[in-house]
């Protein structure tokens, strides 16, 4: 087990750091995805048809093409895109995005498309009678959003968002192809230098399983908390 030890001779500490990077990328992308999901859901639920089309296009395109393609596109095309935007503002220096930024952006856009659908469903699950009652009670739109919509949408969306989180967590492995040193990348480097690929990819698999089961528990606890006042048949 020498190769898995912590310290200079072993890969234990490197794998642990890789796991921390995986967690950071996953959390950042999931959070960014949530923001996009709220935005996407409001597009899809808009009263204006052209706005709805925009929301539909976002979810259909992102969910219809491979995640790896989106990651490659942003990795190879991202620099150029950012530089041409910067040039509009008079900045002509070379800009290079790091793998973390590209990765979080790409995974966020992907998980945002799935979050959009989850949040849209949760918004539609709030009974219209409650909105009417709130209006009748004289609440303004902001107050209705804050007091009636947000608490319930959060509760309805939680199980679906748990799935999106698991998906995002697993998708972080794809970021290894653009060179971010997370679990997969560390496992690749370690297997190259020790010639024991099975050992390291198995360890990687175990780490992902561990992260998945821990976060699953977290989401279950959150669901219990959010449903604490709800009567069950």
């Amino acid at each position, binding site marked *: 087990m020498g190769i898995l030890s912590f310290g200079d001779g072993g890969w234990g500490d490197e794998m642990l750091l890789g796991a921390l990077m995986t967690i950071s990328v996953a959390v950042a992308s999931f959070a960014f995805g949530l923001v996009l999901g709220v935005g996407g859901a409001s597009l899809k639920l808009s009263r204006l048809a052209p706005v709805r089309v925009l929301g539909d296009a976002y979810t259909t395109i992102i969910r219809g093409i*491979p995640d790896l393609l989106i990651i490659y596109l942003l990795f190879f095309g991202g620099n150029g895109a950012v530089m041409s935007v910067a040039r509009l503002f008079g900045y002509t220096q070379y800009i290079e995005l790091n793998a973390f930024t590209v990765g979080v952006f790409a995974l966020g856009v992907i998980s945002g498309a799935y979050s959009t659908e989850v949040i849209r469903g949760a918004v539609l699950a709030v009974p219209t009678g409650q909105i009417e009652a709130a209006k009748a009670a004289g609440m303004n739109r902001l107050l209705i959003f804050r007091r009636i919509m947000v608490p319930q949408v959060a509760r309805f969306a939680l199980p679906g968002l748990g799935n999106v989180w698991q998906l995002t967590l697993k998708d972080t*492995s*794809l970021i290894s192809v653009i060179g971010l040193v997370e679990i997969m990348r560390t496992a690749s480097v370690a297997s190259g230098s020790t010639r024991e690929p*099975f050992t390291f990819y198995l360890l990687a698999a175990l780490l992902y*399983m561990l992260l998945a089961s821990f976060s699953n528990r977290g989401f279950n606890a959150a669901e219990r908390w959010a449903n604490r006042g709800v009567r069950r048949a």
Partner: protein
Amino acid sequence: MSIEFIQEVLPRLLGGLLLTLQIVPLSLVLGFALAVLVALMRLSPNLLLSGLAYGYVYVFRSTPLLVQIFLIYYGSGQFRSFFQEIGLWPVLREAYWCAIIALTLNTGAYTSEIIRGGIQSVPWGQIEAARACGMSRLLLFRRIIFPVAIRQALPAYGNEMILMVKSSSLASTITIMELLGVTRQIVSETFVVFPTFAMAGAIYLSINFGLTRGVQWLERRLSPDLYRPRETGDAIAH
């Protein structure tokens, strides 16, 4: 994006598409057979069988496909002499077969859960009725449980097929020149980034669009009772 570029690149992309359209159906068919077996194991009263099935499904659903592909393709190399001895090395040496094995095992795990849900949704009264008619277990499965379960599972299985079309792109990470592999090759040769990826994306989108439509058509065909057009219903009511 010039017309010449499209003319030059499209045949190569379609060549990659051909390989994608070979990998996906093959893994789907093999994975489906595996999934039926695993779902039956999972529902069996034998604790060893159901435990094995549960473990397999749990492991493959909670790890990324990329790990599974690398574990099979690169990982098998660590036990090369063992695989050579039992004669499996010629298979595991080929990236193509490693990709097929990984995709099959992956979709098998997800599909078995879909099929299990379908089987569990079969109303108990139908099974009792079939037993009362004297059907054997095999006949009961073939005539009652399987057809009803398939109808129930079809929408979810449609999603799984789309996921597989997308997942097959990961085969490009182990040197397979399917659609995304060819796309990357073109990008690194020509440095034309956006148009090339956009063309590949459009191809993936149209496959998935076609698949969605195909599944919808099949759903309507298999359960015409659920999709009776409203006009006919009204005509009967009047």
